[in-house]
């Protein structure tokens, strides 16, 4: 690695992803190997959450903050991470993280709490993308509304949906009207597993419609909180017609990508001989703030 000695002993790099629903942090070493990650709810206070999730990840990795050479923040709340050295958009971070886990990936589908993204990746680089952040249909929010309506928890809902191979067709793509439709289907006596399976198919249909605009190529990687749901995965594979690959922790691809980009950024600074100056400037700024708050 070029200029690694300059960083010694700070040979760790962190990525932090403040999403609409969940916050994630990941620490990698100089080879980009993952040391630790932590996932927690975002809540209303982004800054507190950013501190907390970073602190937890550091202690899980057994690395003091002083050993972190560079931090990249990403996600919807990335501006609220005062101790980050740089902000990078979630699309870039996400593509980097997915490609780190699945080097051959061609299509990455991410369904988050309030949005969905489709990324086309070639040779580890983002080549095209489409996002939906305009409409709750086709996002995790649709599932939350369905779960609330039915009084079920999200995992339970997924497992119940697996009991059937005859999903009902949910006609309303709009979340508001789908909620009504779920209630009326229950009242007309349709079995719960069929209704739930229909809900997953409805979301998958919406997202795959987005993906098809970019042409779906295999391998397909499926990430985001929604990828943890067994019912959703089955529906996704049914609608896509191909199997999907899912990371062990599908929530952390953004923060992993951010951590890897943090490493790249730090090496760039080292090569230009600017790292020390950057470090000193940063130390007098927000990182001091972070250190004090988390003491």
């Amino acid at each position: 690695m070029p200029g690694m000695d300059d960083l010694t002993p700070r040979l760790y790099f962190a990525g932090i992803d403040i999403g609409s629903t969940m916050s994630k942090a990941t620490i990698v070493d100089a080879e980009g190997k993952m040391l630790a990650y932590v996932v927690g709810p975002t809540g209303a206070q982004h800054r507190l959450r950013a501190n907390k999730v970073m602190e937890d990840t550091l202690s899980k990795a057994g690395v003091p903050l002083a050993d972190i050479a560079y931090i990249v923040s990403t996600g919807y709340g990335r501006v609220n991470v005062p101790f980050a050295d740089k902000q990078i958009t979630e699309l870039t971070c996400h593509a980097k993280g997915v490609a780190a886990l699945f080097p051959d990936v061609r299509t990455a589908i991410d369904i988050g709490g309030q949005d969905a993204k489709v990324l086309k990746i070639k040779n580890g680089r983002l080549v095209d993308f489409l996002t939906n952040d305009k409409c709750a249909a086709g996002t995790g929010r649709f599932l939350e509304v369905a779960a609330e309506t039915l009084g079920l928890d999200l995992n339970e809902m997924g497992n119940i949906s697996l009991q059937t191979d005859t999903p009902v067709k949910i006609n309303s793509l709009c979340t508001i009207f789908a909620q009504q439709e779920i209630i009326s289907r229950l009242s007309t006596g349709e079995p719960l597993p069929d209704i739930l399976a229909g809900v997953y198919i409805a979301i998958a249909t919406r997202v795959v419609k987005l993906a098809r605009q970019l042409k779906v190529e295999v391998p397909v990687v499926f990430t985001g909180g929604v990828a943890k749901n067994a019912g959703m995965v089955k529906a996704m594979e049914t609608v896509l017609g191909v199997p999907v690959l899912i990371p062990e922790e599908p929530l952390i691809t953004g923060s992993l990508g951010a951590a890897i980009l943090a490493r790249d950024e730090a090496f760039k600074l080292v090569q230009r001989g600017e790292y020390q100056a950057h470090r000193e400037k940063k130390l007098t700024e927000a990182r001091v703030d972070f250190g004090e708050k988390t003491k």
Partner: protein
Amino acid sequence: MSAYYLGIDIGSVGGKAVIIDDSRVIIASIVIPSGNNYATTAASLKEEVLNMAGLKPEDIKAGSSTGTGGRNAAADSYHGVIVCNARGVNLVFPSARTIVDIGGQGSQLIDIDEKGQVINFNISEICATGSARLLQLVARILQVNIEDLGPLSLKSTQPSSFSTSCTVFLETEVITRIAQGDKPEDIVAGIHRSIADKVSALTRGVNIRPEVAVIGGGALDIGLVRSIEEKLKLKVLVPQNPRIIAALGAALIARDRYI
């Protein structure tokens, strides 16, 4: 004695019935909730509108139905809601060339000629934001009657701005705006603008030509009507009872078919 004609429109929210006579005068009209059994709703609509008109079933020479649930009505013929809206508006406002319909599950834009024939139209996908449904939701959050939203909106001096056009996300954002101290009238006016934006997005492919008539449940909301006028930069016409226009159109078609 004149002959009478019946039009029934069963939409996603409301069921409507209209009786007209030979000379196309509205004798009676009624609006009831659509309920969950459209055949029953159609039967009660017919019974009640006949009562209002003081007529017997045999006085009706012909009847037509329209709307989402209209096929469940035992009428002589069924017609699409676009065609019925066009006919209905043409009778009430012969000068209207564009119709904006804001219904319970979405909106439509219809371009018509001087005879009430459809030239072109555009229907939104089923979406709560382009429909009266969003108004219902906002009324509930602000704890005001849906009828009061319009007058409230007109008091606004600084309409709230919203970052999303999805009703689900708007619900959260409305609550955030309340927490930030936005006035109820500004929130409602902001929501009216969001709906007007969504409806005007339909204009792609359809010419907006004066005069413009706004119909459907959404037209009952004066604040929304004003926002649409602002967005289209045009004065619009609103019928006295904007919800019964498709049912009126169905009655007119029944009359044409009979005569």
